C-alpha cells in the first residue's frame, strides 16, 4: 500500500483529478442555458468533446498509476522504467491540458458573457 501512496505523490494527485477538468465546474447544462438552437448544438458538441477527452485521459492516468504501483511495489525498482513511465504520463498531461484549453476557448467563443456566467458563475467560492 505504501507503493500506491508513493505513486499518488509521484503523479501529483492520483488518477481521477485532471488539472484542467472544467466540466466539473459546470453549474447548469448547455440545454438549460443556451436558447439559440445553433449555438446550443455547437456548445453541446464542445462539452461532449471535453467529456470524451477527460474520460480518455483518466483511463490513461489509471494505466500509468497501475504501472507505477507495480514498479514501486518491487524492492529493486527500475528507475529508468519509472522515468519512462513518467515521461509518457507527463507528455499525455501536457497534450490533455493543451486540448482542454483549446476546447475551453472554443466554448467561450460560442457562449455570451451572460450564458457563461450562468454556466460557470459562482464557481469562485
Amino acid at each position, binding site marked *: 500500500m505504501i507503493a500506491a*501512496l*508513493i*505513486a499518488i*505523490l509521484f503523479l501529483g494527485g492520483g488518477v481521477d*483529478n485532471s488539472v484542467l477538468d472544467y466540466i466539473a465546474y459546470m453549474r447548469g447544462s448547455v440545454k438549460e442555458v443556451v436558447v439559440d438552437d445553433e449555438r446550443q448544438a455547437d456548445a453541446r458538441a464542445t462539452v461532449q468533446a471535453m467529456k470524451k477527452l477527460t474520460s480518455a485521459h483518466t483511463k490513461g492516468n489509471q494505466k500509468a498509476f497501475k504501472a507505477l504501483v507495480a514498479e514501486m511495489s518491487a524492492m529493486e525498482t527500475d528507475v529508468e522504467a519509472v522515468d519512462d513511465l513518467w515521461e509518457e504520463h507527463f507528455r499525455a498531461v501536457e497534450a490533455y491540458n493543451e486540448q482542454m484549453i483549446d476546447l475551453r476557448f472554443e466554448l467561450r467563443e460560442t457562449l455570451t458573457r451572460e450564458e457563461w456566467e450562468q454556466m460557470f458563475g459562482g464557481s469562485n467560492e
Partner: protein
Amino acid sequence: MNRILMIVFSLVLLSFAVACSSGEPVSREDQQAAAFADLRAAVTETVTDDDRQNEVLTIISSLATDVDELRELLVRRRTELRKLNADYDATREEFLEFANQMESRIQNGRRQALQQHLRLAAAMTADEWAAIEKAQTRAMRSIAGSVQGI
C-alpha cells in the same frame, strides 16, 4: 520503548475504530492519523533493528507531510482554476501559466516521491519490505481515496 509505541498506536487505532462504529463522521485528518499510526505500528513490529527502524519511521513521517501538502495543493488548484475559468475575460496565456505552474509543482513532487521510495527500499530487507507492503489497511486506502476525491 517499542512496547510503549505499540500501545500508543493501538490506542490511536482503537479511538478510530470506536469513532467509526459509533456512526460519528470521521474527519480526513483523523483517518490519515489512524492510517499512518497503523503503518508505523507495522514498521515498529517488522523492522527490529533500531537504526533502520528510526530511518523508516522518519521517512513515513515525511510521507505524511507530503500527503498533507499534496492535499492542500489540490484544494488550492481547484479553487484557483474555478476562479480563472469563471472569468469570461481570462486569457489563454493565463491558463497556460496556471497549467505550467501546476505541472512544475507536480514535477517537484515526483522527484521527492521517488527519493522517498528509494530511501525506504534501502532501509529495509527484502522480507521486511514484503511484510510492510502487505500491511494494507482500510484507513490507508482511505488516504488514497481522499486525495483522489479532491
